[in-house]
């Protein structure tokens, strides 16, 4: 009797301990790179000789798929800077927080980073919803956010630097290229949140202005995988072929492309242009489903330049040879270096007004080419359109000859037409004012 009892207990305790251990180990494995980065080159560094920065991305939940890779890129940039002697002679210490794909959590963690950890800047966010959630925090704390992902524009905050593309550097050139090369009839598919809805408003405005038509528009909830009804609508709206413009984000893309192929909607008659599918996503969707489809970005892993070759080989050496690099990762990498240059020019990391002023006009020889931070807190970037190859890489079918200047306020939306943003001017409405007005 006694023995049986203890065995039963043992199994219970054993099971519980096993579970806890796995959980702890799982949680414990994430901050490791951070620990390494802060401890590696100068172990004797006293607390006063480090600069604390925050990294705020989703490490769990539906967005972890994408955001984890951006954290890797940011940490690589920080490690590189630390190995080269740090900033102003000080090492950078990264405090990593998990936004958990939940927008209120992002706001709470941003507050925690600024108030408790006293970070001088935060690199973070992926979805526009999370950026909109943390924006009030950064504005009231007067802190600094570096946002690394292409987004819908229509925003220009003094407290945010945007290193991803705005619509005129990604979506608008893609629509122009499609109208010229692929067809005039567009079906718009997107996830149901702020980025796709705003992007589609811009696309509809642009199509109207440039002679295209929108034959349909539909949205899927984030994470939804049942796309049968949307495919039925596409078949009905575009019976003889046409362009599908895809602003789906996250897992829904996998479902969309897998089922698109099954329904016989192939890229020869129905080319799909995506703005959220990069090398990382191609890998997890499977190239056989994407072969011949298009994507518009500023950076592709296949770009043939010395800066990019070094970026790719460094990244693979650090995280594994089967890893890929993509546009948001490159933008995040740029963000860390631009911040470092701004701090060095300002001579201080903690006087954020000075850092902000010093950041304007900074250039960086990025993997995509030489990018410059403009007065509207956005980057002048190169625009590229790529076609998916069976290898999973993109072949570039269009590249802008020069870096395209960012226009955060869309010129194809009636309510923002003619507006611009310039934080080098000392005026109360510098974030949004009519062009030419004083």
């Amino acid at each position: 009797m006694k023995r049986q009892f203890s065995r039963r207990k043992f199994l219970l305790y054993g099971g519980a301990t096993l579970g806890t251990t796995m959980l702890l180990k799982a949680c414990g494995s994430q901050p490791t790179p951070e620990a390494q980065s802060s401890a590696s080159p100068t172990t004797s560094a006293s607390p006063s000789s480090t600069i604390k920065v925050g990294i705020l991305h989703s490490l769990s939940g539906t967005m972890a798929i994408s955001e984890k890779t951006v954290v890797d890129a940011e940490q690589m940039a920080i490690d590189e800077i630390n190995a080269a002697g740090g900033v102003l002679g000080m090492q950078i210490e990264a405090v990593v927080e998990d936004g958990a794909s939940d927008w209120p959590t992002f706001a709470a963690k941003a507050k925690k980073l600024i108030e408790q950890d006293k970070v001088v800047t935060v690199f973070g966010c992926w979805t526009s919803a999370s950026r909109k959630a943390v924006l009030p925090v950064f504005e009231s704390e007067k802190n600094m956010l570096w946002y690394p992902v292409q987004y819908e524009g229509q925003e220009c905050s003094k407290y945010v630097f945007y290193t991803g593309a705005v619509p005129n550097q990604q979506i608008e050139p893609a629509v122009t290229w499609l109208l010229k090369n692929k067809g005039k009839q567009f079906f718009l598919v997107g996830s149901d949140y702020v980025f796709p809805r705003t992007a589609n408003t811009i696309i509809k405005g642009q199509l109207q202005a440039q002679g295209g038509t929108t034959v349909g528009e539909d949205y899927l909830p984030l994470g939804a995988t049942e796309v049968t009804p949307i495919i039925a609508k596409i078949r009905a709206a575009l019976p003889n072929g046409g362009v599908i413009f895809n602003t789906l984000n996250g897992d829904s893309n996998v479902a969309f492309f897998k089922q698109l192929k099954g329904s016989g909607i192939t890229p020869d008659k129905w080319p799909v242009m995506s703005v959220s599918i990069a090398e990382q996503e191609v890998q997890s969707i499977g190239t056989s489903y994407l072969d011949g489809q298009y994507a518009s970005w500023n950076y592709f892993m296949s770009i043939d330049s010395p800066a990019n070759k070094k970026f790719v080989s460094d990244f693979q050496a650090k995280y594994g040879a089967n890893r890929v690099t993509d546009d948001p990762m490159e933008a995040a990498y740029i963000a860390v270096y631009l911040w470092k240059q701004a701090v060095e020019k300002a001579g201080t990391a903690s006087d954020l007004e000075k850092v902000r002023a010093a950041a304007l006009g900074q250039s960086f020889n990025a993997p995509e080419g030489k990018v410059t931070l403009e007065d509207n807190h956005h980057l002048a970037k190169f625009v590229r359109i790529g076609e998916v190859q069976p290898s999973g890489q993109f072949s570039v079918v269009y590249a802008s000859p020069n870096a395209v200047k960012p226009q955060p306020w869309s010129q194809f939306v009636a309510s923002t037409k003619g507006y611009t943003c310039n934080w080098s001017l000392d005026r109360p409405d510098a974030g949004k004012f009519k062009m030419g007005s004083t």
Partner: protein
Amino acid sequence: MLSVLLDTLFDGISIGSVLLLAALGLAIVFGLMGVINMAHGELMMIGAYTMYLVQNSFGGLGGVWFESYIFLALPTAFLVAALGGLMLERWVIRYLYGRPLETLLATWGVSLILQQFVRSVNWAMVIGLVLWGALILTGRLLVWPRWGNLPWMSRVWVIAAGALAWGVGALAGERFGLALEEPWFGAEGVDVNAPDWLQGGIPLGDFQLPASRLFIISLTSICLLGLYLFLQKSPWGLRIRAVTQNRSMSACLGIPTGTVDALTFALGSGLAGVAGCAVSLLGSVDPNLGQEYIVNTFMVVVVGGVGNLVGSVVAAMTIGILQDLFSSGILPLLLGDKNPLTGFFNFFATDSMAKVIVFALIIIFLQVRPAGMFPQKGRSVDA
């Protein structure tokens, strides 16, 4: 017009069959055993990852191997998920029968552990876990029997072994770096490429029937038929039904209820694994896969009526067809522009809004029939 209607019907049935396949395992576990298993979705995820592993080991051989790996993946996924379910039942749920709230919380915890396990599993972690298991086994077989009157020593042993194993795993990871510390799967999704014949479709008039959908519909039918035959015709099926109807009487009559519980749970979990394989043909394979299906599967079982397979079938098909009917915008098309209802249905003709109206209809339905479409009858219902 007829072809449009048939098309909609086919789409609705294909949505429904995915729902049904995912809910089938839960219909057994929740419906027959009354266990609220929040980790059901994660068992599906395990099935999908098994498919990925089978694809990588056999699909790489190319040719016939790649074309047919799915037939090997399905039984493998069934076995792996059934084994996972068996461990879950033996180590966790067995102690919580009759305590639905605790079961719910415990299985939810297990689901989180499984998700995070898939994200971070690497060789260093596996080395640690295997070492820990080996140490515990050694302790149980060789050391503990000698301690006799000191049962608490075994707990110390387990904890100490855990610490040692953790240390060895961490040290090995530190020493060999990426080779051991690179995650097997990672937080990102993995690519499951269906064989070529499942990627295309069968052209039919001006549209094409997706082969993956046809495959899932037939797979669902086969699973359903197999399950029916097992429950109705086999001796173990008879025992399962007996335990479901009256546990204490079955025990009195000599049915080993513990074994029946384990078997039922393993069967339900195995079906979840098969469902995981199937949905990997349609969507992404990532650690969150289970989360996307868990709500829908519970919905199907609740609407259908607990303890009844027919209910789940009817509920899944009804929900699938309704969802497609609303969101594909077919209703306004049929009603024409003049009908006053057209505006109403147009408003609900997007995917998100269709979900809203389907959920609203389910809530209304459950107000009328709280026990679902086919409620269980008899004296033992409340037991």
